């Protein structure tokens, strides 16, 4: 199609507007591209001279910071294992069994999971965890997140399993496989992409979370990195900017890597639809 002059100008205007909005979104993040590599970084935007990795060396020399990253990993991995396993089993049952009332269960869970948010239920969650004697333990964070993320994880996975033809398991059983064999040989490998997505989603959620560990944990040796960063810049009169910049970047890397992995493997929108 031939472009008329006004249409051409329109295109340019559209591109310029899109680029402008993109730049506005980039501005608050620009600082993170430079400060971690600047040994004299302050809150201002400055190009490092020279570029250096010394801030990262400082981070890895700080045992509190390293411990917090490790704690984040324990809590995220623990929570994700629980969420992944429990959600897979439950979603498979919701999709493949003919249990009476499973539709109602699904509906009620969906309702509760959107009503009971972390910020509305912080008091009872704290009380339950302290009643169980789990305050200030990794397990408290792991279990709370497993419970909170499970309903959504189950729905994502149930939809995924629903979209997989039943003929996979049927053909296995006709061929002589027991239900257990059909589940492990055929169903599980076929569902795996869905499980990966749920696990990544759960990991990103727990890894990035602040409020729940902030409430449930007290001591330094249990704190995840999110709470550590918050205390670095809120409590210590003047923040140690160099350390914080490098530390925040390290802390963000798994999220960025997982995001890139999922958008490479499953396409970008899939991940887009399921965060939060």
């Amino acid at each position, binding site marked *: 199609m031939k472009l008329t002059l006004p249409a051409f100008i329109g295109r340019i205007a559209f591109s310029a507007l899109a680029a402008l909005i993109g730049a506005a979104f980039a501005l608050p993040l620009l600082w993170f591209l430079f400060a971690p590599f600047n040994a004299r970084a302050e809150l201002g935007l400055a190009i490092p001279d020279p570029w250096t990795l010394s801030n990262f060396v400082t981070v890895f020399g700080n045992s509190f910071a390293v411990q917090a990253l490790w704690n984040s990993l324990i809590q995220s991995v623990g929570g994700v294992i629980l969420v992944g396993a429990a959600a897979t089993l439950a979603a498979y049952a919701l999709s493949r069994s003919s249990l009476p009332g499973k539709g109602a269960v699904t509906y009620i869970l969906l309702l509760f999971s959107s009503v009971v948010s972390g910020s509305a239920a912080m008091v009872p969650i704290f009380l339950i965890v302290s009643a169980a004697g789990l305050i200030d333990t990794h397990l408290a964070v792991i279990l709370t997140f497993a419970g909170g993320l499970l309903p959504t994880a189950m729905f994502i996975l149930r939809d995924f399993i629903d979209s997989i033809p039943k003929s996979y398991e049927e*053909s*296995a059983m006709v061929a002589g496989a027991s239900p257990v064999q059909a589940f492990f040989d055929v169903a599980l*490998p076929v569902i*795996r992409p869905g499980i990966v997505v749920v696990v990544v989603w759960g990991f990103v959620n727990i890894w990035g979370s602040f409020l729940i560990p902030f409430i449930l944990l007290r001591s330094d040796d249990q704190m995840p990195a999110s709470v550590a960063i918050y205390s670095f810049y809120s409590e210590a009169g003047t923040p140690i900017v160099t350390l914080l910049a490098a530390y925040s970047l390290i802390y963000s890397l798994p999220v960025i890597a997982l995001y890139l992995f999922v958008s490479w493997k499953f396409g970008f929108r899939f991940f887009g639809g399921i965060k939060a």
Partner: protein
Amino acid sequence: MASVEFSNVTKIFGNFNAVSDVSFSIGDGEFVCLLGPSGCGKTTSLRMIAGLETPTSGKLLIGGEDVTHYHPKDRQISMVFQDYALYPHMNLADNIAYPLKVRGKSVTERHGRAKEVADVLKIGHLLDRLPSQISGGQQQRTSLARALVYPSQVYLFDEPLSNLDAKLRLEARGFLNHLQRDMGMTAVYVTHDQAEAMALATRIAVMDQGKIVQYASPIEIYRRPATTFVANFVGNPPMNLVPVEAVQGDGQLRPSADGLVLGGLAMSSGIGTALGAGKTLTLGIRPEHLSIAEPGAANTIAGKLFANENMGPESLVTIERPDGSRVTARIFTDDHIALDQAVKLSFSSEHVHLFDGAGNRIPADGETPI
């Protein structure tokens, strides 16, 4: 191989009667097609043989043994699925050999046997590919190979060719026919394609609304359809069905309709006994039994030319009758047929089928009643 028997089998889903009180048996070594439109209960019947649905009532026997409540894995059957159900994470060898794996066979035996079957099906060179890396026709043959890799009592096919394009479907159909001749397997084959059923079956069970309407050899079904439903379903284009009225004439009952002349038609005495005058019947003539009337033809049906389609070896000539209904003739000529507006088609009296008001066949004189 083994026989299969349905004994008063009914299957109800919620308030939908998928199969109602069906009884029939499939002999050892027979290739039976379940033929019918979607929702007629053919797939449900097949799935009950496989054990993937449990009958609401009735009994199902394989090889004389009551298997109604057996788990699919214990029925010693194999099945080819419409969507092939090839496991995307296994290569072809592992897909084909999966039934042997669950039977605890060694890897060497599994792969040896898979290679053997795959070679017969001409996919032996693809064994280390994944299902996503082969063509639709090859996927179809892989699923067939998986069904053939171990000895079964019954082989089940759920519309296995419906996902292939027309040319591949013909090829695969020919191969299945060859396989049946070679192995003499007991097979139950679900299809909505009457040509497939005609080509493959030793017997066809035509189903409609959860019931078997006719269960007979393909020739029988083609020559003596039991109902207008069967007549309309089998044959391409389907049989022309013309509503006619029974009138008294020359001391006997004869069918009458606008534009229809029946000169030399010897009517079944069955009409006289079954019906009085004034009843509505249906007269059926297959398109291939109609030709352009020569002057003086005894039996003719007339109308306005509606369409004249040249198909290569034949022409489809369709006329529109005064009541708006259409009659199609298959004229076997590779020449273009020049026709006037008014067309008369002729037929010989032995090719006339008559059905009563309820659509059931009225046997011709000398024909054994169904």
